[in-house]
């Protein structure tokens, strides 16, 4: 079988790295990273094999591998790497590279490779959404309720269109990943029976929601100090609170959209409003720890941050903060101009967040879950066969 080698692959991935001098070429494939990794036990594939793929330019194999998404960046490999090749930072860069390649619009590549590109994409989307909102805005009347200042129907219309576009974009991204993976699996002679797919998908979703492997990563990385952190600061719990809070807000917004008349006044203990507010606070808690530890930059996975590492949590934080502010504003007798501005900002930021989902770090919600499912799918039947073989 012919292989296509991309000789500039390593340099391209470096551009996605948090550390500009990310020197994966220092790696001499001793295998320390794989052997020390708390999560590589069941596959033996990463980080060394992925690094090797990048070194020799195996672009398609790298993009087809689900291994880069199985890493939770505990940093054990980086701390013990004899060559200081920084495998953890490389894995993060490879994920960013993969997001860029799965996206067919080219915007992800622009956003992930440079600060200016990231800001440009952000400005572009912000301008589009601001323009759309301006078209139907009623300015100059400080006492108008929020959903009359910008008509609620109009926001919903833009939102539905946005979700449709992002859905299509995400579909193509996932399809790109799955297609490469499937082609590689079949070329290597693996059979992927449909009967085991539901179980694989179930295990991936439950792992994503319950953070089982993330917890294992926290508990078993010996050299990093994760296990010594108080429970409320463990990376898995911090991530779970950001994710859980976000999902609660998403659910509240969706239920409101489906069942609640636009702009109808409700008390603060109205279930959806309460769910959104609690979700926002939980999410904010997680985000504050993420941003604090990233600013300190002392421990993994926060030691090295690229602009895109900052961009996504900051955008999410700003969206949540403006959203919580709006929750308060609706109970004031008159929203006033500040209220209108905050509401406008919240809607634009929320739309930016959704629009940039397939382009930024946010895309990991798609690709990591799919990768975990693909991995489970590939390994579930094989393991059964192996164990039968041993017993026989």
């Amino acid at each position, binding site marked *: 079988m012919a292989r296509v080698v991309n000789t500039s692959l390593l340099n391209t991935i470096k551009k996605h790295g948090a550390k500009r001098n990310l020197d994966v070429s220092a790696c001499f494939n001793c*295998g*320390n990273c*794989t*052997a*020390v990794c708390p999560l*590589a036990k069941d596959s*033996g594939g990463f980080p060394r094999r992925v690094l090797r793929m990048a070194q020799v330019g195996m672009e398609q194999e790298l993009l087809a591998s689900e291994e880069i998404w199985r890493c939770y960046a505990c940093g054990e490999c980086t*701390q013990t790497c004899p060559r200081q090749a920084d495998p953890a930072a490389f894995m993060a860069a490879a994920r960013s590279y993969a997001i860029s390649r799965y996206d067919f619009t080219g915007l992800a590549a622009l956003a992930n490779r440079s600060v200016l590109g990231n800001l440009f994409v952000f400005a572009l989307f912000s301008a589009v959404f601001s323009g759309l909102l301006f078209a139907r805005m009623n300015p100059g009347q400080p006492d108008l309720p929020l959903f009359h200042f910008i008509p609620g129907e109009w926001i919903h219309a833009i939102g539905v269109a946005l979700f449709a576009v992002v859905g299509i974009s995400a579909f193509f991204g996932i399809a790109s990943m799955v297609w490469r993976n499937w082609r590689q699996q079949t070329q290597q002679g693996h059979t992927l029976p449909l009967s085991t797919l539901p179980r694989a998908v179930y295990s991936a979703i439950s792992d994503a929601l319950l953070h089982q492997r993330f917890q294992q990563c926290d508990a078993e990385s010996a050299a990093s100090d994760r296990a010594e952190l108080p429970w409320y600061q463990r990376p898995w719990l911090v991530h779970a609170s950001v994710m859980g809070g976000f999902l609660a807000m998403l659910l509240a917004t969706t239920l409101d959209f489906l069942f609640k008349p636009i702009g109808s006044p409700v008390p603060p203990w109205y279930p959806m409003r309460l769910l959104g507010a609690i979700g926002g606070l939980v999410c904010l808690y997680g985000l504050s720890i993420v941003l604090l530890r990233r600013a300190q930059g002392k421990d993994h996975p926060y030691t090295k941050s690229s602009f895109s590492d900052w961009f996504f949590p900051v955008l999410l934080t700003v969206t949540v903060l403006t959203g919580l502010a709006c929750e308060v504003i609706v109970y004031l007798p008159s929203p006033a101009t500040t209220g209108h501005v905050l509401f406008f900002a919240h809607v634009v930021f929320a739309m930016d967040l959704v629009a940039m989902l397939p382009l930024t770090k946010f895309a990991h919600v798609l690709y990591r879950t799919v990768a975990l499912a693909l991995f489970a799918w590939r390994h579930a039947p094989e393991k059964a066969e192996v164990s039968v073989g041993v017993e026989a």
Partner: protein
Amino acid sequence: MNTHVTSDFRPDAVVIGGGIAGLQSALDLADQDLQVLLVERQSSIGGHMISLSKVYPTLDCASCITTPKMSAAAHHPNITILTNTEVEGVDTCDEKHSVRLLQKPTYVNFDKCIGCRLCEYACDTEVPDPFEEGLGAVRAIAVPFTNAIPQKAVLNAEACGTCGTCARVCPTGAIEYDQQPRRLTIRTDAIIVASGFNLNSLNIKPQYNAQHSSNIISPLTLERLLAPHGPYGRVLRPSDGKIPGSIAFVQCAGSRDESIGVSYCSRVCCMYAIKQSMLLSGALPLADITIYYMDIRAFGKGYEQFFQNAKAMGINFVRGKVARIDPITDGDLSLHVETTEDADNPLQERRHDLVVLAQGMIPGWQPSTITQVASASDGFVATPMLTAPTATTVPGIFVAGTAAGPKDIVDTIAEAGAAAMQASQYLHQKRAEVLVA
């Protein structure tokens, strides 16, 4: 304590360190009729080499090579040896060096002691024997080891309870409990730094858990286990005295690893691991022996053949850096490694009885803080001139052996000869200048 040397002594050269490098340098200078003062920190000359079992690639007995050198130096009319003596500093002014020495008390008068060992036999206080890497015991007053030079008893003041037994049994009345440290300043024209190496800690990589298992040992400990006159007289593992059936060598466990700050190669570990594995397969014919390596550096004369011989003898060579060692049941150890040889099952956990960590070589002494001699970025003595590899940054001070960087015995002896030649040439040039002036 040797009290004959005073500050009036004006040797042509001072050699710092009585290991194989210092001995060779001292002998080569003394044979040219130059007066040499050899200074050794320990109680006996011989350095690390005298404690080794055998040397590669010839598998010669290390004692059989080192003892004659030690003896030759001790009996040479032009060589004066001070043991138990540390260099406190070297003051260099106008190309003249003043070596400040601290002679530590041995509590035994070397003029009277005849090495009969009656004191050692009578003493009832025992401490772990440093010569046997702590595996055996030694009395609080003892001749340091069988073939130590000088053959004089030395009293370990920290362990001694001053019961007076040794003084009572000594036939010559050599025991002097009231000995005090002596300070000397020796002026000389040339110095050879041959201060050797240390190994970095077994615990330097916490992932290897050496502090949690006595079956994770230093290669120098294995040398003693393999030596015919070693602590047990046979190879047993320290935790329970079991004859090990499966022994692992973990290479690059303290060097070539930037995460622990030793990025250089220690140069000897591949070869001594191969040598020790050969000796082990002789001592324990049924044992499985595995060497985990990143790459085998068999660069010297005859070394590649030595490596091939080991492979032919059935030593397992597994390519892969051991990432973690976990103590498991029965004192055994589990090694986590990704091998590149088994593509279907690269990630492996392998069980062994005994693990030898190839610790990194680090400088044994730091002259840069107390002399004008500069250190290189790796911590060893800097040798800035390519065409004079034994010259340091100070004229008249030369360096030989592992003080200048990791190297094996063959290279050390060659370099020690070179340093002696450079020093001799320097001295003769200096004398000629004095005559002309």
